[in-house]
């Protein structure tokens, strides 16, 4: 997740180095925030690429999915030994697949040109609100 964006955004190498250093230092110092910092470093690297125009929508989807995979692996490492690991992996694969699907759908929606229509915006906001209510309920 750190190497992939820097191949297309060479100028972001300092952030990549910082993220890699956080990854390497984490086990030795038992630093809980190291994983989060490494993921944020990957996000910043990709964000710099997006701003520079070198990271396309498909590449952004792949970056985001890689970051999610890394965070899921980090959670697995912190959970410790758990019996029924196969069932746990299945659940995580489902989350990874959902994340990748969400990234693709978002990328497709972003690439599609839709004329500005207020009712469409209103429908989108209403759908988001309904989703929030359904999640909270």
């Amino acid at each position: 997740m750190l190497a992939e964006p820097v191949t297309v955004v060479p100028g972001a190498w300092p952030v990549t180095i910082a993220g890699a250093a956080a990854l390497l230092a984490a086990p030795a110092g038992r630093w809980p925030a190291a994983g989060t910092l490494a993921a944020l470093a990957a996000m910043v690297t990709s964000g710099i690429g997006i701003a520079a125009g070198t990271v396309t929508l498909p590449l952004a989807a792949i970056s985001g999915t890689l970051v999610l995979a890394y965070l899921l692996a980090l959670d697995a490492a912190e959970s410790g030994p758990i019996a029924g690991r196969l069932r746990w992996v299945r659940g995580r694969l489902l989350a990874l697949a959902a994340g990748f699907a969400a990234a693709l759908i978002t990328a497709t929606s972003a690439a599609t040109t839709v004329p500005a229509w207020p009712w469409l915006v209103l429908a989108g906001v209403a759908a988001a609100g309904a989703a929030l209510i359904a999640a909270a309920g």
Partner: protein
Amino acid sequence: MTNAAGRDRQPATEPRPTWVPTAHYRRLVTVALLPLLAAVVLGHPAYLVLAAPMVAALALPARRPGYGARVSMRASGDRCFEGEQVTIRVSAEPAGPAESVGLRLMLPPALAVSGGTAASFARGGGGPVEAEWQVTAGRWGRWDTGRVLVTMRSPGGLFTGTIANSAGEINVFPRPPSLAQLALPAQLHSRIGDHLDRRPGHGIEFTGIRPFAPGDRLRRINWQVTSRRGALYVNQFAAQRAAEIVAVIDAITDTGPAGESTLDRAVRGAAAIARAYTRAGDRVGVITLYGPMRWIPPGSGQRQFFRVAETVLDTRSLYSEVSPDMALIPRAALPAGALVIMFSPLLDERAIDAAIDLRERGYAVIVTDVLATSPVPAQGTAEAGLALRLWRLERQALRYRLESLGIPVVGWPGEPRDTADAGEDTSTRLDIALGRFARQRVRGGVR
């Protein structure tokens, strides 16, 4: 010693935990927030694509769970002696879908999981989880058996709920050292017991022959002597009486490492007295000296031993300005003619005064010095050795003072040394310390 059959310490309960976001949840939110903010500020849809996987992972498990877990705990007993093991069994079953369930046993310092096994147990799949721990009671006292933490993770690992269940109390009795030789007072109680008294009575020990007197039983007539002397003579037997012993615990001062401190030895010594004498059919009571004095009147039987053992469980050294007044103790708790065996480090003048007060009131008193180690003087000073010698001289003078008042002093385990012996077995030393009084009874009486 544990209860013969395990019994449910607690019926199955279904408490509701407090569900809080996990570190995984916080990481996802933190990592998703950065590109979302960039998308709002910069207006570039590609940032939304970057954040979409994290947002989907947060939304997938839906909402915060609200279910609890059915927890049941079972212990093999609620009382035991030092060094014995108690088995704690815990079973937890979540009332909803849980990714994993973990159990962790939190014990007080006096208890420890034996066998080196981990105190936590986790299982995936969300089904019922059972765990069993062998817990060793290391120190006497009344302890909370500990808490069991049941930790559940929701599907997706975004929320964790923790339930804390208390396992109740456990009474750990002091393990009494063996005491085979019993010290006895010169004056025994009038109750029937196992010890020979100087007074004639109806025991089984033959002591002599005397002329028949009205009221003597005909079965006591010694016909051989009667036929030789031409007058009635009867066999005389010694009375068998029970002794009354009162163990006094000096809890005013407590010094030394936990588990082998002066109070620990005093409590174990009192337990040894209670066990040995109740087994011999004698009556044993206990008095605890500290701010608020506590006492148990002498009684007999195994029940009395456990009454004494339960009374001493709450003994802790509580510093108080109040001097224990032995005159406040009722006669029932300190009967006349009782032998008083005091366990004290002889560091506080109030305990010494209490021993002298008892002696002056006519009780036979034995003081067992439970101070095992000498104080450690400050290193590097020329006066360090001199101070230690002066301290030892003061101890000797104190002993001489007590013995001149008719209070014998014995050391258990031995005289105070500079360092305590690691892993020393003090059980035989109590026998040695008090054994000399088994051969010659301790006299009381007003001086």
